[in-house]
């Protein structure tokens, strides 16, 4: 069936480095995606979204790239900080919000 999935379960980066978290999706009709951050003991928190008519969207220190040809999303975090440590989910925001499996980002001081 249709699914949203992540490439790596854990990503460890040095504080100050850039982080890249990847996500693949299988539904070619998907037209809206959201990245969520989930800190320990908390609910998912909206980070940034992108619609299928765009291939790039930038926020504060975060950039999402969408490659519809290969059905791939990435979340880039610039100058990663300890507070960025969390699990990151991509989600296909169609009729039902369908989450991927999550990547745990660990920031080393």
């Amino acid at each position, binding site marked *: 069936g249709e699914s949203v999935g992540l490439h790596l379960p854990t990503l460890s980066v040095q504080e100050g480095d850039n982080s890249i978290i990847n996500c693949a999706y299988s539904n070619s009709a998907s037209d*809206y995606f959201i990245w969520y951050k989930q800190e320990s003991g908390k609910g998912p928190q909206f980070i940034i979204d992108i619609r299928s008519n765009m291939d790039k969207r930038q926020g504060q220190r975060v950039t999402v790239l969408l490659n519809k040809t290969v059905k791939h999303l990435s979340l880039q975090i610039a100058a990663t900080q300890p507070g960025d440590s969390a699990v990151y*989910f991509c989600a296909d925001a*169609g009729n*039902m*919000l369908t989450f991927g499996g999550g990547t745990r980002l660990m920031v080393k001081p």
Partner: protein
Amino acid sequence: EPEVTQTPSHQVTQMGQEVILRCVPISNHLYFYWYRQILGQKVEFLFSFYNNEISEKSEIFDDQFSVERPDGSNFTLKIRSTKLEDSAMYFCASSQQGSSYNEQFFGPGTRLTVL
């Protein structure tokens, strides 16, 4: 900043017992959602709720689950005859509108442990 709240933060129950999970959505939101996250797994959609009825539900949402809005603000998810595999975090979310382009705001979740 308005936020979604959920109580209790942690609920421990015996298998076969009924539990009620409570949520207070953001006050001007009209669309409500429940999700489940089994430990170490992805967040899974349970159902959405609008205008006092369930608008969409996943295959997870079976007769074991029921939902009520006892008043204009509170929102409850009842799980009848809990099973061990019901142990999970349960998240409530709300949004102003129901379109997929409208941000859902998540509560902190209730951790349900079934023994």
